[in-house]
């Protein structure tokens, strides 16, 4: 059965303290790995899509990487405005549905 697991559940960082969030997946044939950011009380906002092992994408202080079993979201020198919940997701075999992990709640302390 296809599954995705995110860790840690919550992460507190000092401003400027770099770290990584993990998304481990068990999928019978990866069809894309998606990262989203969700602010409290709002809908998730799309960040990145990765399709093949070794692929990397960057946006400001965020960099997403992908291996055959997991994806990492690296946060370099985070700022308080990076505080949010980060979700990863993948599409089903049919591609018509997306399954989400439970997310990592990131808090960046000034």
């Amino acid at each position, binding site marked *: 059965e296809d599954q995705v697991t995110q860790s840690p559940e919550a992460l507190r960082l000092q401003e400027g303290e770099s770290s990584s969030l993990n998304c481990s997946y068990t999928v019978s044939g990866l*069809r894309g790995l998606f990262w989203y950011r969700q602010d409290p009380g*709002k809908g998730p906002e799309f960040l990145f899509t990765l399709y093949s092992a070794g692929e990397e994408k960057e946006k400001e202080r965020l960099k997403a990487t992908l291996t055959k079993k997991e994806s990492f979201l690296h946060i370099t020198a985070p700022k308080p405005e990076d505080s949010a919940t980060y*979700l990863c997701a993948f*599409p089903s075999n049919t*591609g*018509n*549905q*997306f399954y989400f*992990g439970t997310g990592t709640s990131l808090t960046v302390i000034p």
Partner: protein
Amino acid sequence: SQTIHQWPATLVQPVGSPLSLECTVEGTSNPNLYWYRQAAGRGLQLLFYSVGIGQISSEVPQNLSASRPQDRQFILSSKKLLLSDSGFYLCAWSVGTRNTIYFGEGSWLTVV
């Protein structure tokens, strides 16, 4: 550019009352449409998805239903709400298969 509108943003409903949440997408044709629910502190749970008018697939059997009366309109309904229906409901859309899905701002439902 494409936009998605979802309403109402918040509502408080008594147990046993009906529910109607509406979502519309602009700027695209024949989108895939989704309803997700996010309970407090939990992940996104796919409730329904639709690949076309009148085509609804249900992921979770419950007292909710969905309808797609027009190409870019998706409605989530219930005849009688339960306390357990409380949560954050999100409408989303995508085009094609395995492509990025985009979310609306969400609707907070509290059943009292």
